[in-house]
């Protein structure tokens, strides 16, 4: 007989549902269609980044250079247009730069066999430094006239739904199809579950690892463009912020284990919704910043502790490569 057990994904969903219910009942103006759209819009970029991180984490890696690939290629587009280049040429340059970052990450991890934590930490620092030293005149790259029209990627709405939510939805769909409907996706799961078994069965595991990081970098670049369009500028200093922890939080909270091979797009959506609900509710309540961090930390701890109690680790379930 199968014992009924909550896994982390369900626990987080229950926490999310409880919070959502509490806010809906006690908080005036929370449960309105407008506020729901705002809630989603505020976490759309975080969600897109979560998807990029999910691909890598499912393949038993981690990508700490993600915020640099959000900031630098996106900033490059704005800077090049400001310097008089055409928008398509700038977008192409940004795309190539992202692919290059992904290739370097992938090569370091798959072929040079550097642990992903260190490889991506270093490339992230390198890319951010490159942007600051060689590419940008100022940390905040301003919007210029040549970008006219491009702000529609992050502002305004399509059929009444804010564009950034639509972009998140498109990214979800693409990543879902990739992970669940293509052979490459199946390979990523196989490598994440057991890299040695995957290699023995003939899966081209090294090229697939490179592919993971290239995809993550491209999605990161896309998230950067949506963000830049939404705030009409690119604050490249975001690399120094704690955004990367929020991205990892979304992924892990949603139930994608850092040991790889488990989870998918749904987990990212659940993680994103939980963070979005917390942020939105606390902003409406006008809770001071320090208090917000405290509450975020407590909710995270509750989710993690509950998971540990309900699903204790043992020798059999613990996997190598756990962080």
């Amino acid at each position, binding site marked *: 007989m199968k014992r009924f057990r909550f896994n982390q994904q369900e626990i987080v969903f229950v926490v999310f549902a409880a919070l959502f219910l509490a806010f809906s009942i006690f908080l005036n*103006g929370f449960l*309105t269609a*407008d*506020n729901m759209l*705002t*809630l989603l*819009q*505020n976490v759309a*970029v975080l969600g897109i980044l979560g998807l990029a991180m999910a691909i890598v984490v499912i393949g038993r890696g981690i990508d700490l250079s993600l915020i640099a690939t959000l900031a630098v290629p996106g900033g490059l587009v704005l800077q090049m247009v400001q310097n008089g280049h055409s928008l398509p040429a700038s977008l192409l340059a940004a795309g190539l730069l992202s692919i290059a970052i992904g290739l370097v990450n992938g090569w370091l991890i798959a072929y040079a066999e550097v642990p992903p934590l260190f490889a991506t930490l270093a490339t992230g620092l390198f890319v951010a430094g490159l942007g*600051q030293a060689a590419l*940008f*005149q*100022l*940390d*905040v790259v*301003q919007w*210029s006239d040549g970008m006219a029209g491009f702000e529609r990627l992050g*502002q*305004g709405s399509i059929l009444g739904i*804010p564009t950034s939510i639509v972009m998140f939805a498109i990214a979800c769909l693409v990543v879902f199809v990739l992970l669940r409907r293509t052979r490459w996706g199946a390979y990523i799961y196989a490598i994440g579950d057991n890299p040695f078994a995957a290699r023995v069965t003939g899966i081209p595991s090294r090229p697939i690892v490179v592919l993971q990081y290239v995809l993550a970098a491209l999605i990161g670049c896309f998230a950067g463009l949506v*963000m830049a369009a*939404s*705030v*009409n*500028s690119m*604050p490249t*200093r*975001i690399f*120094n*912020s704690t955004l990367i922890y929020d991205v990892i939080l979304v992924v892990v909270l949603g139930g994608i284990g850092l040991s790889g091979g488990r989870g998918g797009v749904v987990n990212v959506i659940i993680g994103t919704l939980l963070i979005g609900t917390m*942020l*939105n509710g606390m*902003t*409406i309540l*006008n809770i*001071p*910043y*320090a208090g917000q961090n405290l509450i975020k930390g407590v909710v995270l701890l509750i989710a993690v502790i509950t998971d540990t109690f309900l699903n204790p680790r043992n020798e059999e379930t613990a996997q190598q490569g756990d962080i």
Partner: protein
Amino acid sequence: MLRAHQFACGIIAGLSFTSVAVPALAQQGLDEPFQKSFREALAGKTVAYVPVAMNFDLTEGWYAGLKKELEPYGVKFEIRDPNWNTNAGAQAVTSLISEKPAVMVIHNPDVQTYAKLLQRAENEGIYVIQINMGSAYRSSAFVGANWIEIGERQTEGVVKACEGKSNKIAVIQGALSAAASAYTLKGVENVLAKHPEIKVVSSQAADWDAAKAKAITQTVLKQNPDLCGIVGFWDGMDIGTAAAIKEAGLTGKVFLATSGGGERKGACELVKNGSFDLDMSYDVPTQAAQMAGTIKWLLSSGAKPGSIKGSEYTTLIPITKDNADSQTACWNLSDLKK
């Protein structure tokens, strides 16, 4: 008669000759007694510059302005960029003390961290000029904005725009740890104390981050669509605030006051396109010129470092639609660097 006439002509001619001849005598030149010692006092001296970070309009503008003013006199420039890292900054200041530059230009990250170090520097015979963010130690000179005044004048602008409207306002602060943000908030409170009719529906910190400012503003506007004004603490961050107002279709209905260094793309252009209604500018080139002037004065005075102390608070330029088009309200970083 004819004689008399000729005589008169002769006198006039003679007079005009003398009037030409007198300056001709002075062409030997006169030595100005103080310029030589001034040049000697500056030549070969080192000025060390420690901003909180390079690569943003304020610190790049100060650097370019100082260089332009002082390098022609043979002043050497040294720059230490702690890149937002307070510890790295404190280390840079410590190592500079042992290198003994003539002047240190210091942009404090907060009130406490450098205070003791700056006192030590002046005891060691280094002039310390603090810019835009002062520390608890008062050094030879402070050149910079008065954050309290900025907060007050921004809030006055918002309160005025709210007359006859809902009287609901929001405050988007910077980072909680930054003293500039806390000082500005004090200015906001000063004005609000005089206007009990104004209700602050939200006062949140957005960490100088445009994306966070946008998220907060969107949520606040959904809850309070009748909001009449927002006080933002930095124009680089309030691009996000403005984007939220625009997306809600409330441009022109919600009065947005902010502040910054007055760089054209970040200030005037955004006031012109309606993103900001008021941008209190502390005009970076003027600040740089005042710093350079203070350095020249201190070096040529021969005063003992720390023996005289003074402040030069920047006269603020309120940028609104009325002056956003003018050549002088804003400045271009690229031109300043030329």
